[in-house]
Structures are given as C-alpha cells and as structure tokens.
C-alpha cells in the first residue's frame, strides 16, 4: 500500500510482526537498498534504526563523490557511482546538490609525482579526465596553497560533492511514497537463528519474523554480526572533522594530500570550510567523541599547507566512524556463514560514494540471484581464503604512500 502522507517519513507506529526483508541501519546503505528493493517489487521491507535516519557515518561525512581512485577496478565502479548520483535528483525528485567542485590530490614529494603519473595514465585509459598540474599551475588553481609548503604538483579532475543530509531526505521522502517503512528509535538486540538461517530480529520494540536481514550498520556492523554469530574482519575507526564559519567562494576544489599524513579540506556550497587531518595511530573502536588533539593537529598541519586558513574561525567539530576492512573495500553481498544474512558495511570511508550504486546491484542479486561483476569484487567472504584480516597492516593509503610496497 503506497502511503502518500508526508507524516509517514518517520514511522512511529507499531512494528510489523513480519517482513520480507529487515534492513538494520537507516544510513545511506540501508535507505538506498530499501529504495532498490521497492523498485523491484519487494513489498514488505522494514528499515529499523537505533537513532534517527542519517545519524551515523552518513550524517557525519563530507560526501565527496570522486571517481579518482587508485586502482582500475575501483575507478570503473566509482565512475558508475558518480553517474548514479548525477541522476539521483531527477530519479527521486529531490535535488541532492550534486556539484562538480573538482577534486585535487596535492603532491609534495617526487615519488608521489612518479606514482600519480602512472595513475593519471590509467584514468585516461578508462576515460576519467584527470590532469596532472605543475607546481605553478597547482598554485594558480588553488591559491589557498600559496605561501605554504612547496608543492610538487597535483592531480585534478571534475569530481563532485553532494549534500549528505539531502541524500538521506531524498530517500526518506521517496520511501514514504512506497510500501517501505522506516522506523527510527528502534534498537536490535538479538538475531533469532533457525534451522535454515535467520528467522527473526528481536528489537526493543518487539520481534519481526523475517528470512532476510541486511546489516547496514557500518561502524556497528561487528556488534550486529556478533548477534548473528557471523564473523567479519572490518573494524570501526574514528575520523574527525571540523567546520569553519562561512567564507566567500575561495577554494576551487576538494583538496586531499597524504604527506606527511593524510589531510583534506574543501568548501561547501554555503561557504564553510570542512577539514581534517587523520591520526595514523587512531585505535580501532566505535568512538564518536571529538578531541582537542584533533583540533590542534589539524590547525598545525593545515596552516603549514595553506597559511591563509589561519584566519578562519572554527565553529564546530565532530567525529564519526569509518568501518575499515582489510583491503579498504566494502563487504556487500550475502555471506555463506548464515543463510539470509546480507552485508552492506565495511565501507572504509567510501559508503556515501559507493552505497547507492552497489546496493542497486545488491538488490538485483537479491531478486534475481545474478551477481554483477562490480558486485563480485565486494564478496563479504573474500577474506576467508587469504586470512587477510589485519585492518591496520594492510592500510590502503600506506600502500600508496610507501614506495617499498
């Protein structure tokens, strides 16, 4: 039954007793999967959310939608993801502010330049229009870096940002017009197994009988997997962000650098600058507390790279989680460990980018049983064979940054 009432955006009614699919987590992955299931005619879909929709990593990230990736496979997938976002506004009738602000990977060392030249060639082969900038051109395109540490160049393309909250609202308003129910304030505390797999989900507001559950809880996926007796190697790690008072149009691309440590900044459409410097020694665990050290670490490095930023006023900081998998790629698909248990987590900081497209493929898999090549890469059971489960040792960017690999 389609409900047109806008007041159904958040469903506060009684929980249904049974459902075809229960999605746990109303972040981008859960909501996008619900949308794709509804589009394929799956009727009884319930999204349960402990807090409010978009209250986890989805509402805490800065939503860079970038095709610029380091491996060929991922670049292909990311480009498809970007197309998905480009069309999202029209498909959902809701402008998610997809904006091609540009993306600049700023390089500081000669070995980075060498490495990135090869990657730019790969991008060109695939048809991603990255360009390599000389140090002078870098400062011309990004005057914010003037007077800072000398740059060795940059790779620039026309990647986009979106409004992360708008993506959540677009999905909520779309889902309110379908038979999907999005139920906030509902925590799952047990998974009831049966002889043939999952049988029910036990929540603090009652039990829902179901034969299919999607774990779309990213940073909390380990907790939920444990309830089902499923093992997965992804681990949550805190990432912090700060935001400044709004500035006039000042920064012309979303900037990222990796030397001496990973840092990034960009300007939102409203003019605020969001930024962060990553702590390479951050210990795994769900931790959404903001830290004083983050403010100082970020200020210290950012004013070295872009001294003009010294004058901006920090008005707010927050923290969210990255759910990091050993190869820094998500776990998307059914697991062989438990019949009816589906994963869409371990996004490793790329959930906003990857989830809408990959959950489309996942819904296709759910309905037809066919696995698209782009989905097969993210098989949740891929780590069993390799025994590759240390999330820190195999850091994706450490591999990039350290030439000895």
């Amino acid at each position, binding site marked *: 039954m389609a409900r047109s009432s806008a*007041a159904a*955006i958040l469903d506060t009614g009684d929980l249904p007793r049974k459902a075809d699919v229960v999605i746990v987590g109303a972040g981008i992955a859960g909501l996008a999967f619900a949308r794709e299931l509804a589009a394929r005619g799956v009727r009884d879909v319930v999204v349960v959310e402990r807090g409010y929709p978009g209250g986890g990593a989805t*509402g805490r990230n800065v939503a860079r939608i970038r095709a610029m990736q380091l491996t060929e496979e991922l670049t292909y997938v990311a480009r498809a993801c970007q197309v998905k976002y480009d069309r999202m506004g029209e498909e959902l009738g809701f402008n998610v502010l997809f904006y091609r602000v540009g993306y600049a990977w700023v390089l500081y060392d000669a070995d980075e330049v060498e490495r990135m030249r090869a990657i730019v060639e790969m991008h060109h082969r695939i048809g991603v229009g990255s360009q390599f900038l000389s140090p002078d051109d870098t400062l011309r395109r990004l005057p914010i870096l003037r*007077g800072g540490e000398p740059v060795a160049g940059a790779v620039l393309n026309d990647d986009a940002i979106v409004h992360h909250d708008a993506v959540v609202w677009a999905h909520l308003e779309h889902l309110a017009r379908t038979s999907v129910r999005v139920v906030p304030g509902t925590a799952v505390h047990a998974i009831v197994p049966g002889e043939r797999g999952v049988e029910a989900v036990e929540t603090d507001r009652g039990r829902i009988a179901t034969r299919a559950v999607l774990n779309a809880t990213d940073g909390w996926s380990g907790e939920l997997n444990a309830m089902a007796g499923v093992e997965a190697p992804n681990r949550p790690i805190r990432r912090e962000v700060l935001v400044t008072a709004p500035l006039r149009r000042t920064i012309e691309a979303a900037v990222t650098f990796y030397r001496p440590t990973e840092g990034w900044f960009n300007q939102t459409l409203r003019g605020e600058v969001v930024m962060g410097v990553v702590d390479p020694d951050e210990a795994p665990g769900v931790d959404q507390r903001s830290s*004083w050290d983050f403010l100082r670490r970020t*200020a210290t490095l950012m*004013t070295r790279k872009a001294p003009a930023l010294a004058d901006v*006023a*920090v008005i*707010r900081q927050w923290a969210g989680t990255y759910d990091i998998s050993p190869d820094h790629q998500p776990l998307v698909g059914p697991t062989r460990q438990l019949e009816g248990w589906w994963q869409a987590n371990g996004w490793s900081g790329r959930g906003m980018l990857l989830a809408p497209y990959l959950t489309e493929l996942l819904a296709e898999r759910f309905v037809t049983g066919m696995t698209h090549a782009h989905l097969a890469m993210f098989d949740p059971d891929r780590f069993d064979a390799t025994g590759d489960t240390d999330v820190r040792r195999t850091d994706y960017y450490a591999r990039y940054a350290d030439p000895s690999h």
Partner: protein
Amino acid sequence: MPARRVSGRPGASSGPLVTFTFDGRDCEGVEGEPFAASLLAADRLILSRSFRFHRPRGLMCSTGQCGWCECEVDGVPSVRSCRVPVREGLVARGEHAFPSVERDLLSLVGLASRWIPPTFYHHRFLRPRRLRKRYLDVLRWFGGRGRLRMGSRAPVPGRPTRRIETDVLVVGGGQAGLLAARGAAEVGARVVLVEAGTDRGTATLADLDVGAEAAGVEILTGVAAVGWYDGMVAAIGGDAHIEIRAGAVVAATGSYERVPLVPGADRPGVLAARTVTDLIERHGVLPGERALLVGDADALAEATQLLRRAGASELIGPVPSTSLASVRGRARVTGATLHTDGKRRHVAIDLVVFGDRSPNLEIVLAAGAVVARQGDTLVPVLDGSGRTTVGNLFVAGSAAGRSVVAGVAADDARAAGRAAAVLATGKATPPPSTTPGRPATTHVAPAVSRGAIVCFCEDVRAWEIRAEQAAGYTDPELVKRRTGALTGPCQGKYCLQSFACLVGAGAIPTTRPPLRPVRLGDLVASETDDAGGA
C-alpha cells in the same frame, strides 16, 4: 539624531579622538572603545547582514557572543566588532552585502522570504540539466561571508601547551565564579579559576577578586575555555594552550541574553540591558532617545536609570516580555506593537532594551549532564549542593538559573565551590548526590508568532520549525539539520533555549565543541610539543 554621545559627559570615554574607516566611509571614535560603539555614536547602526535574508543587524550582546556585529577588520574575516578597540587608521568593512551593509541590495531576497524555506532548493534547479551546475554556482555565490587574505605571510607561531592539575577548576570569573572559588579554597582545595575577559568591570568584582586571591585561588584572566573533552577542559590564553584536569569543575559561565521571540526582534536598535549599561556608563554613548523596556524590572533597573540620567526623552515600560507582540522598522527600530489586556497598542520608539536572560548550558550539555525545563527555560538538574548528574561537575550562579544578586544564590555559589572542593580533595565524604531523575516536564508549545526568528545566524523562523515537524521530520536532530537552526557561527548560544521550547520536551540536539569560535591559527601547537604535533 537618535543615537549620540552623551553631551558633556566626562569620564570613561576620555581617550584621544581617532579616525577609522567602515565600509569606505570615515568615522571618528575615542581610542580604545569598541568600534561598534564609535559607529553607534555616529548613528551608524548596521554592522552586518544576516546569512540568509540579508537582514540588517547591529550591536546586541556586546560580549562577543551573538555575532550580530561581525565585520572584516584589517583583513581578518568575521571579527566580532564589539570586542575590537578602535584605533587610528583601522579599516573595517561589512561582509556579505552589496554594495555595503548599510545599503545592501541583496536584502531584496528578504521580500520573498516567505516562499523560501530553508530547504527550498531541494525541490528546484533540476531542469534543464545543462544549467544544473550554473544554478548551484549562483546558490554558492549567495552563500559565503568572509574573505581570506591569500598568499605569503609570516608563519603562524605555534603555541606551547601548559598542563594544569588541580583540585577544583572554576570556569567563569563573575560573582558566582569568584564566590565558588573562594568557597572551594576555604575548604583547603587547590583552586584555579579561568575567565575569558581581561578587565574586571565592577568594584564588587574587584573586591571579590582580592578575596578569592587571598584565599589562595589562582585566577587566570584572558583565558577562554574552548572545550570540555571528557572532563579535561581545554582553554586558550596568554599565547598558550592550557589543558586543565581537575577533580571537580564548577561551571559559573553565566547566562545569555534571551532575545524576545517576536518578529523583528533582530532589528538594529534592539539591545540587551547590559549593552545599554555598557554603552552609557563606559563609553558615554546613548543608543536611542525613545526606549521601550521589555522584561523583568530588576534586570532593567540599571539600564533604565542610566537612560534617564543620560537624557533619553521617553521611556516606556518596563512591560513583561509576553506583552511584546512585534518590533517594527526596517534598517532600524521605529516602533513596537504591544499586546496588553487584549488590546494592541503601537508605540513609536527607536530603542528596545530587553532584560531576559537564560542559563549558559554549554559545559553542562557538553559533559552530558541532564537539563530540565523550568517554565520556558532549560536549566541544569542540580542536587542541593549544585552538583549536576555528571558526578564532578557543579554549576553556580546564573548558569544554574539563579541570579547571584539575590543573597541566597550567592550562598549557593559558595556552597557549590565547597562541595566541589570536598569531592575533589576527599576531605570529607560529600553527601550522596540527591540527583533527581529527569523531572517530568509537561511541554506546552508556546504561542509564538509564526514570523518570530528563532535562530538568528540562519534566520530560521518559528513557522519553518513547525513546518518541518508537520512534514514528518519529527526528530529534533532532523529539525536542526533541515532548518539549519543551531548550526551557525553562534552554535545555538542564542537559539537553543527557544528552539527547545518550540520543538518540545527532551528536544536538545547534540551540542559540539568548541565552546566558542576559535581561529585556526590560534589552535596551532608549537613544534616542540609532541601532544599537538602533526
């Protein structure tokens, strides 16, 4: 001329005259006074424009908190001009306006404001496809505020870190803070008090200072607490970062002005009572001739007396806040509508002085302590000793919702300090915290005019908050994100109380550090310090 220097007034403003520039026009001021006061003396009221609708804004709180006076000063963006001493040759300009803040053509956007809810662009600008980027370019042009100086500059000096361990930390050096500090020191605790301001205003405070220092309190002025991080209080002052770990903390952080929740209350010429007092007494500037006094007579007493003495020609009131229906005017206050005994009455005025205040809950909320509604105000839930539901956090004075002017509250502040000291030093077992649970507060949505501005940084009106709730975005966190309320530069200092009041019981979205805006350059840690290095 409505705002002017008080004629023949000697005293406070006796420095030499200097000339500075605001928005390309010269202005004279007395050296050392805030340049917002100099501009006001020249009857130039508009200092900034609001973010969304370019509404004119002027001086309001005069404590550097509300942000209505933000200008670019000597190339630094978004500086709170009520805290900038004027000097010869200072160059300031208004931000976010064309061609100037005083005559801003962009304010025409305001004419359409009733058709522009905060999420309007989510339902537009999708077609034609080829213009989508252009639409957002335009939207981006309308956003933004400050300008940055690009290019080379002297390297930003890093600040060393000073770590302080103490028994009791008192945040805030007003009467309540000083009394609490003294109370704690008398029990024999090591006490540190931080105060963001540098000048000790009144004689009473100076006396209290001496008393507290004599009792052994270490008083650090010019040190602003910027965050509560799991009990560690981070502060910046004296060119250092200060990390303070204390056995117990007393928040004596005072209160914020409660701007009347009526349409037009953000017009230049609506001033907090304390600002009026400051302007007349310290700077010899009379901010208006015909004043309407709104709120509690006690809170307005000093300002009323000063206005009268400075020669204001007409004083109306005090009238209770509930009888103010709207403030009228465009670039400045020209009138107000009062609602008394079922009748509406218009008064012609050029100044509104309001006295209502509500507790500063920032540290309380940052620590995760429980607050409750008392009438239309949120106050921290405290036990008999002033202790919050977070074991080692105490609140004293107006931050607890009590006025220290009353003797009882002064005793309470002292008692809170003593209790904090007892807890921190373990000298005696503190009485078990008789913390009540969250009291059952029945929420009655107040009869707020739909056009009343709730959040000033983002120009969020009461009807917009109600519309989001009606549309099904019932969670306060979603109302916050959808409307932008609480997310502007003041981070809810001037709207949290009204927002909570409108949205309903328990409706307090998460507050986040820092406690006040901090320049990125001030957060740079010195290289020698491992704790802050990159």
